[in-house]
């Protein structure tokens, strides 16, 4: 099962996903990146049925990129999240829905605000200050419930992330050795290593 969670603060968003891809009892990949950069300021992390994840994400990426080129202006994080939800919803009662769980986060340069959207495979959407999908959510949400305050700084955000990772390490049966940690802010999207937290 995948670890996928995120938190926002004053003008930034942090995404955390684990790096392993398993197929039955074999770990196929230990350095997978489960995030997709939709615009220079919007990031989406994806978990779910393998195949659906990359297929759906690449489709969204193409459409978001096309919008940006057509209109010389990128979609904002909220517009992107709602577009994604619409695509999921359209497929939901069709022959084959997309079985993916997403966290869409970004920094809106027009409003100077960061935002995070939790979207599940049934196309439910909600705007939240922190979120998680999957089994890790049972551990991580408790930590974030207690530690989160509005308008935290990036350092405080990293502290909370460290605590979340520690909680998963202690209580989750699967030992995740490494995580993909990305920060989205006014400068764009950058990756941070576990060591730099």
């Amino acid at each position, binding site marked *: 099962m995948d670890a996928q969670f995120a938190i926002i603060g004053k003008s930034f968003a942090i995404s955390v996903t684990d790096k392993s891809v398993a197929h039955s009892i074999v770990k196929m990949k230990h350095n997978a990146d489960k995030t997709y950069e939709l615009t220079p300021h919007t990031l989406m992390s994806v978990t779910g049925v393998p195949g659906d994840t990359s297929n759906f994400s*690449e*489709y969204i*990426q*193409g*459409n978001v*990129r*096309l919008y940006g*080129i*057509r209109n*010389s202006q990128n979609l904002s994080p909220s517009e992107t999240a709602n577009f994604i939800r619409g695509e999921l919803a359209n497929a939901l009662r069709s022959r084959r829905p997309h079985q993916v769980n997403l966290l869409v986060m970004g920094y809106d340069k027009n409003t100077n605000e960061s935002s995070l959207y939790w979207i599940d495979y049934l196309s439910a959407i909600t705007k939240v200050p922190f979120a998680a999908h999957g089994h890790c959510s049972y551990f991580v949400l408790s930590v974030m419930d207690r530690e989160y305050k509005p308008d935290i700084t990036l350092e405080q955000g990293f502290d909370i992330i460290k605590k979340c990772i520690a909680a998963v390490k202690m209580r989750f049966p699967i030992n995740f050795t490494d995580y993909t940690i990305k920060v989205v802010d006014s400068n764009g999207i950058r990756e941070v290593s576990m060591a730099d937290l």
Partner: protein
Amino acid sequence: MSYDRALTVFSPDGRLFQVDYAQEAVRKGTCTVGICGKDSVVLGVEKKAALKLQDSRTMRKIHQLDQHMFIASAGLVADARVLVDMARVECQNHRLTIEDPPTVEFITHYVASIQQRYTQSGGRRPFGISTLIVGFDPDNMPKLFQTDPSGIYYQWKANSIGRNSQTVREYLEKHYTDDIGENDAIKLAVKSLLEVVQTGSKNIEILVITKSGSRTPGADEIEEVIKTIEAEKAEEAERRSSRRTAQT
């Protein structure tokens, strides 16, 4: 017998009149020049003078197709909008299915084959535009291609389309050098457009694409280039007249 009307009918001397007339429409469009350099490609367009109450930012002649690919056209602006949008979608389709950005030739081929389809299937008129498609391929080579209403496409080192394009092309043939650098290409684009555009920097728009990105020099930078060109012209005239007086 008039062979003007139905598009799919040849005339007795082997012409498709509608295609010829479409090429006439192109010849009425504003002049556009493209120059492929060693590590850059420059597009220059003649901008129609903006009417007083018009927002000139909305009169775009150069359109972006993908991250490193741009298109400029001469002819019917509305027709251009349709082809530009089809090309934009195809760029993303290519990226989605092939996992790589498309080459300039691929998109040119796509645009040209659409233009050709409209010369053969019944009931539709051809697109009244020629396009210059420029960009960098994934192998980091700059490319310049041209399409026209008949559906053919060619690769060029430098070319121009639209009104007075013959004059500009002859100028380019005289002054283009292989492996031309970025600044020289910009100067050449401006110089060649100045041959046919009257009023200078207000009516010229330039786009420069390099491996690392693209930029649109502002009006003041173009003004600087024009000043340099005029200074060089004055120097050349000075030299010629002093040589003449020396000879007499």
